[in-house]
């Protein structure tokens, strides 16, 4: 018996029964007895749907949409009695080939549904494809009745986050990971205890939308091996999780596996942010393949020059026409899908400045897409993070259209802290800004608008930052011309790995210094996967095509670099314990609670005398815990990026308190980080901070009821 009174076959074609469908929602929607297919094209002259049996080269059937099945510019049809698990589908459009007018219809191509919830064709990572297949990336309809058992996005306060930027495959692909299915969503689930121990409460996944890892054309110059597109900033479909990232991808169950991962991460208090790439697609420029958008409505989906060529604001051949009303809807539908169906907690928008350009490519002050995202009902609590620049010179760090919602990758923080760390002069004044959450950039938006990072997937790893002066990208097959030249890195005397224990120790110390500053800064810290284990990419600062141990996380480093892991976890815990470090308001530099101290006071080797001069390489500061409602202990930090030892005068703490040295990066483990109960009270009012080292002191309640002699001398 039917379930609905309006859903029964009215037409038949080659044995397939169907009726006019519903125009909304777009994509393939599963109904009790059939599947509703709906797709938009403003300029096509006709459309047909092509059905395949799974993985077979020849189609089962191609059903033209009868004229009366078009509503507006939407073609819709409900087909009955399809075995969802065995069916793949695509569309064939007819329309003008007139590039100057923006049209590039190609009747010979079958195109993928932009709303496809799954795309098959690259079901297993790295499996060499059958290049003879004419329709390689195929849309699939999938069941969405995952049982979340009460889970929902976590909605952590933004200022409480510690983000861990992770590559799904790279996290566990290394044989040392010891997981059941290396390189997959399921494997991350197995490693949740590790993330818990590290203390991060958010993972940001590099692109997980379906892409073709085989779309890279470069070869390793030494071995001749094909280099895969490992990062995947090359989207085939915005609604489809990458099958090759799922152990169950060959069973078509990548969506379930991803959801199971998100649910498990949420159960442990870890949010999931997706790195989303809306600025361009995998179709490249006019020489690129017709996969989907180009063959459906080229003029709507892409930014085109007056001659009909592709604007290239992304550096990847094309630019999505993000502020076209139809594309805007697609992007909003997509984000809503990931939040409502998959419980994603936030998004990091790759080259987000492209999203602020109008249909001619001109930056807008009030871009409709960004406004819509910012005020969207479903997206109202999710994190929005912009990579606030694009590849055509638009640089909006501090000025990205934000509607009070958006945070930014703070590229200025990255560059400033790097330069300070390596000992550049003239940075100290900017460092004070960075520590404070960059008020000069985000005065109205608060520190949580600043995602602070020193390393990301794009560039050197943290250990490489202190091991290489220059990038070493020869293995990428582009004659070392790819990747950034402005790394603000320093090898401290020898390019690459060092056998000298002193140099090794210095580099380790520099890594600790970096992590220490990151965790002490207001704003939202982001750590790059593996930096807590001293991960190296042998100087490669653009490992987008290195699907091998060069970029994979080596889990044996948990033993060899346990000291660094311990330090990182301890610093994350320290940040979590001291809310004053992550409060979502900027320091004012004055006393506004009557505590007798400013909320942050800067000092130098002499107290109250910070050296902001052009030759300065050191800075100390005292953070007043009494400026928090919870009345936290004061924290004093002395950062010495001078090569030589400096003595810092430490401001006195309250009579009932004693300073304890918690962090000293010049000390070996475990004295690089001591819990307060294991730390001895400071004697005197001076600390000796080693060259290129940081010390962190916390005012702890004195064990003596009345002030001891040392105490008196301090006051």
């Amino acid at each position, binding site marked *: 018996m039917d379930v609905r009174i309006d859903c029964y076959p009215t037409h038949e074609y080659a044995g397939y029964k169907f009726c006019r469908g519903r125009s909304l929602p777009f994509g393939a929607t599963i109904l009790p007895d059939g599947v509703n297919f709906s797709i938009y094209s403003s300029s096509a002259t006709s459309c047909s749907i092509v059905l395949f049996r799974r993985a077979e080269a020849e189609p089962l059937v191609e059903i033209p949409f009868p004229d009366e099945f078009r509503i507006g510019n939407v073609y819709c049809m409900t087909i009955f009695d399809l075995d969802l698990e065995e069916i793949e589908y695509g569309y064939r459009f007819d329309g003008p080939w007139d590039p100057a007018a923006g049209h590039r219809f190609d009747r010979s191509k079958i195109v993928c549904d932009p709303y496809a919830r799954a795309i098959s064709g690259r079901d297993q990572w790295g499996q060499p494809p059958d290049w003879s297949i004419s329709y390689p990336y195929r849309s699939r309809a999938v*069941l969405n009745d995952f049982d979340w058992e009460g889970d929902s996005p976590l909605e952590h306060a933004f200022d409480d986050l510690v983000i861990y930027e992770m590559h799904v495959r790279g996290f566990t692909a290394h044989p040392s990971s010891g997981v059941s299915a290396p390189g997959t969503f399921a494997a991350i689930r197995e490693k949740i205890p590790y993330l818990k121990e590290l203390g991060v409460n958010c993972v940001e996944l590099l692109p997980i939308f379906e892409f073709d890892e085989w779309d890279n054309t470069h070869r390793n110059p030494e071995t001749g091996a094909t280099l895969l597109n490992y990062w995947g900033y090359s989207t085939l479909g915005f609604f489809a999780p990458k099958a090759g990232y799922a152990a169950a991808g060959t*069973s078509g169950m990548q969506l379930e596996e991803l959801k199971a991962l998100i649910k498990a991460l949420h159960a442990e208090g870890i949010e999931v942010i997706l790195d989303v790439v809306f600025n361009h697609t995998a179709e490249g420029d006019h020489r690129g393949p017709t996969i989907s958008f180009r063959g459906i409505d080229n003029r709507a989906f892409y930014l085109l020059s007056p001659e009909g060529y592709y604007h290239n604001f992304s550096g990847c051949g094309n630019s999505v026409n993000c502020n076209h009303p139809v594309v805007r809807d697609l992007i909003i539908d997509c984000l809503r899908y990931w939040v409502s169906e998959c419980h994603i907690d936030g998004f990091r928008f790759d080259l987000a400045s492209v999203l602020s350009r109008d249909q001619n490519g001109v930056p807008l002050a009030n871009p409709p897409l960004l406004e819509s995202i910012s005020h969207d009902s479903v997206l109202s609590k999710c994190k929005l993070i912009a990579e606030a620049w694009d590849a055509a010179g638009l640089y909006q760090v501090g000025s990205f259209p934000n509607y009070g919602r958006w945070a930014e990758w703070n590229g200025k923080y990255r560059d400033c802290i790097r330069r300070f760390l390596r000992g550049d002069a003239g940075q100290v004044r900017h460092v004070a800004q960075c520590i404070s959450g960059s008020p000069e950039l985000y005065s109205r938006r608060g520190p949580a608008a600043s995602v602070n990072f020193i390393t990301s997937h794009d560039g050197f790893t943290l250990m490489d930052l202190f091991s290489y002066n220059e990038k070493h990208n020869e293995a990428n097959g582009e004659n070392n011309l790819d990747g950034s030249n402005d790394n603000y890195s320093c090898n401290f005397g020898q390019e690459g790995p060092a056998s000298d224990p002193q140099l090794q120790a210095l580099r380790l110390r520099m890594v600790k210094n970096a992590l220490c500053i990151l965790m002490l800064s207001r704003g939202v810290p982001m750590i790059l996967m593996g930096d807590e284990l001293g991960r190296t990419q042998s100087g490669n600062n653009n490992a987008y095509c290195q699907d091998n141990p060069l970029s994979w996380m080596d889990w044996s480093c948990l033993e060899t670099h346990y000291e660094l892991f311990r330090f990182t976890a301890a610093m994350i815990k320290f940040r979590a314990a001291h809310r004053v470090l992550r409060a979502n308001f900027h320091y004012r530099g004055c006393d506004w609670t009557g505590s007798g101290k400013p909320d942050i006071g800067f000092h130098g080797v002499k107290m109250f005398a910070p050296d902001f001069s052009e030759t300065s390489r050191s800075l100390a500061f005292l953070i007043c815990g009494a400026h928090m409602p919870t009345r936290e202990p004061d924290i004093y930090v002395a950062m010495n990026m001078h090569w030589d030892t400096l003595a810092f005068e430490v401001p006195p703490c309250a009579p009932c308190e004693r300073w304890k040295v918690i962090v000293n990066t010049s000390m070996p483990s475990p004295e690089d980080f001591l819990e307060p109960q294991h730390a001895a009270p400071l004697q005197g009012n001076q600390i000796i901070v080693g060259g290129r080292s940081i010390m962190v002191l916390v005012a702890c309640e004195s064990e003596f009821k009345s002030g001891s002699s040392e105490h008196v001398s301090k006051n």
Partner: protein
Amino acid sequence: MNVQSTKRKDVVVVSLKGRIDTTAAARLRKEAASIVGVAERIVVDLSEVSYLSSAGMRLLLLLYRYFLANSARCVLMGISDELVRLMSHTGFLGFFKVVNTKEEALQLLS
């Protein structure tokens, strides 16, 4: 797919064989009540299942919950290693009580 149901004392063993895909799942859904009849303890034997699709996995969970809702206790038995992995990766395994042998099943159900 082939379904066999045997009752010994108050334990019903439902043996599924072959491929559990969309078609099989649809059939099982319709026949669930009649396959089991009235039982308090149910063992679903999957040792001869060669293929379990996404729809098949969903049906297993629906069956399992149907049994529980009808006051029966239920376990899955004899799932191949490959299927255990697939069910684990996709998050389904955690919903079920799973055993390897009939003895374990009876012990768990008693």
